[in-house]
C-alpha cells in the first residue's frame, strides 16, 4: 500500500505537550499522526483519492482527528506522547535504511519495514517510556447498501433513496503496537460512506465532505479506540 507521511506540525501545544504522568501506574502511549492512503483496492477496483480529499486531510482533517484520538486516549486515563516524538524516531530509522521500498519494483521490502517498526517501538520504549504505540489510519473499505442505508464498522448512514448495491466507505482504524513491535489490538470505526443518492441514483459523495462532519469524526474515533482502550485496561504496562 502506498503511504504518505504528512508533516507533523505541532498543533494545540497545550493539548499535546502534557507533562509526564505523576502516577507510576499510568500507562504511556506514543501516538502517530493519522495516515490516509492515496489509493486502495476495494472490490477489485482501485479507488484513488481525489486531490481535494488529500488537500482537506493534510490542511485540516488530520489535525482534528489527531486531536480527537489524543483526547480519547487521555480521557481513558492514559498519558499520551505527542505524534512528533514517534514521527522523529520513525524518520530517522527510515533514513537509516534509505527507505523501505524497492527502487527496482516499487514493492515494500517487508524486512526493512518490520525493522523500522520494531526500531521505532523499541526507541519509544527506551527513550520515552512508552508502554505501547498507537498508529491510526483512514481505510477505504467495501460496503453493501440495501434498503436505503449502508452499515459498516459500527456505524450506518442513510443514502437518501432505497437502493441496493455495493460501494465503498471510509473507516478509522487504530492499531496498538507493543514495545517489541508486535500488533496487540486494533479497532475500527466507520467514518463516511462514499456513496449517496440525493436524486434516487447512487453518486460518489464529494471527496471534500469525508472529514467535515465533526460528529461523525468523533463517533468514528470513539468506536476505533474502544478495543484498544479495553486492551490497555486489561493488560499490565510492559516495563
Amino acid at each position, binding site marked *: 500500500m*502506498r*503511504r*504518505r507521511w504528512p508533516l507533523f506540525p505541532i498543533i494545540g501545544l497545550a493539548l499535546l505537550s502534557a507533562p509526564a504522568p505523576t502516577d507510576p501506574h499510568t500507562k504511556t502511549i506514543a501516538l502517530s499522526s493519522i495516515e490516509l492512503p492515496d489509493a486502495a*483496492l476495494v*472490490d*477489485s*477496483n*482501485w*479507488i*484513488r483519492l481525489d486531490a481535494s480529499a488529500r488537500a482537506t486531510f493534510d490542511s485540516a482533517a488530520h489535525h482534528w482527528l489527531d486531536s480527537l484520538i489524543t483526547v480519547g486516549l487521555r480521557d481513558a486515563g492514559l498519558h499520551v506522547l505527542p505524534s512528533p516524538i514517534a514521527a522523529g524516531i520513525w524518520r530517522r530509522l*527510515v533514513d537509516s535504511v*534509505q*527507505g*523501505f*521500498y*524497492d*527502487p*527496482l*519494483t*516499487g*514493492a*515494500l521490502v517487508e524486512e526493512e519495514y518490520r525493522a523500522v517498526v520494531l526500531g521505532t517501538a523499541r526507541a519509544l520504549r527506551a527513550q520515552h517510556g512508552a508502554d505501547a504505540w498507537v498508529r491510526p489510519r483512514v481505510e477505504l473499505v467495501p460496503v*453493501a447498501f440495501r434498503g436505503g442505508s449502508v452499515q459498516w464498522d459500527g456505524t450506518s448512514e442513510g443514502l437518501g*433513496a*432505497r*437502493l*441496493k*448495491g*455495493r*460501494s465503498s466507505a471510509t473507516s478509522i482504524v487504530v492499531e496498538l503496537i507493543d514495545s517489541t513491535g508486535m500488533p496487540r489490538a486494533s479497532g475500527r470505526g466507520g467514518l463516511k460512506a462514499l*456513496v449517496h443518492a440525493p436524486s*434516487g*441514483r*447512487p*453518486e*460518489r459523495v464529494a471527496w471534500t465532505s469525508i472529514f467535515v462532519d465533526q460528529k461523525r469524526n468523533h463517533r468514528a474515533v470513539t468506536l476505533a479506540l474502544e478495543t484498544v482502550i479495553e486492551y490497555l485496561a486489561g493488560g499490565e504496562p510492559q516495563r
Partner: protein
Amino acid sequence: MNRCIALLVVCAGAPPADAWAAQATPSRVTVVALAPVEVPRDLAQHGLAVTRLTALIATTLRDSGYAVVPPETTLAVWVRTRDALGGFYDTYTGKVIPTKRDSIISATRLALRDGFGADVWVRPSIRIVAARFEGGRARWDGIDDATGGTGGPLAFLLQGTVWSALLTPTSGTIAGASLHVAVDDMDGRRLYERAGGIRLLAHLVQGEWQAVTNPFGDPSRNATAVRLALDSLPVVVAPRRGR
C-alpha cells in the same frame, strides 16, 4: 425506481479507435521489439495467463509481416538497463519518479535499436477501465459483455413498480479489463495506440458483484482483444518485408 450500482473505478482513457489509423503516411518498419504484457499490481496473480497473451501478440505481429525481437529479450534489455541505472521508484514512498523512469525508457530504446536493430518498441499492457453497463450488458473498447444483471423487457416492465426491488442493478459502471497496445519509434514518438476489451472483472451473481476468478483464461476473448488492439497497426506502421 431506477436502480444502479455505484462502482467507480479509475478510467485509463485511450484515444478514439481511429485516431491513429487516420495518419496520412504510414511509417515503414522491419523489426519490432515486443515487451511482455504489463499487468497492474492488483492483477499480478494472473501473470501466467497474461504470458499466453504476450505469445499471441508476438504471433500476430509475425503473421502481419514484422520481424519480432522476442518479449524475453526485450524484457532482459529493460531489466539490465533499469538495474544499471538504479531503478525508478522512490524508496521512501514506493512511487514512480517520472524523470528516472523516462531516462530508463530512453536508454532501453537505444539498446534495442543498437543491439537488435529494432525500429519500434511495442508495449502492451492490461488496463482496468470503467465500463458503462445498461440493461445487463457493458460496452467498452470494441466489445460488450454480460454483467449477469437484469435487462431487457423484464426490467422495462418492472421499472418504477414495487416489483423493481426484485431486479438487480441495471445501469452504472463496473471494472473491465482491456488490452492496450502502444507503439513508439526509437526517438520516443508515439506512432500507434489502441485498446481492445477483454472482459468484465466482476459479474452479478444473485444481485451481488463477484470478482471473475480467471479474467484472462478465455482464448477466444484474448484473441478478440489482440485483434482489436492490433488490427490497425499495419496501416500506421507498415511492415517492410525482406529488408
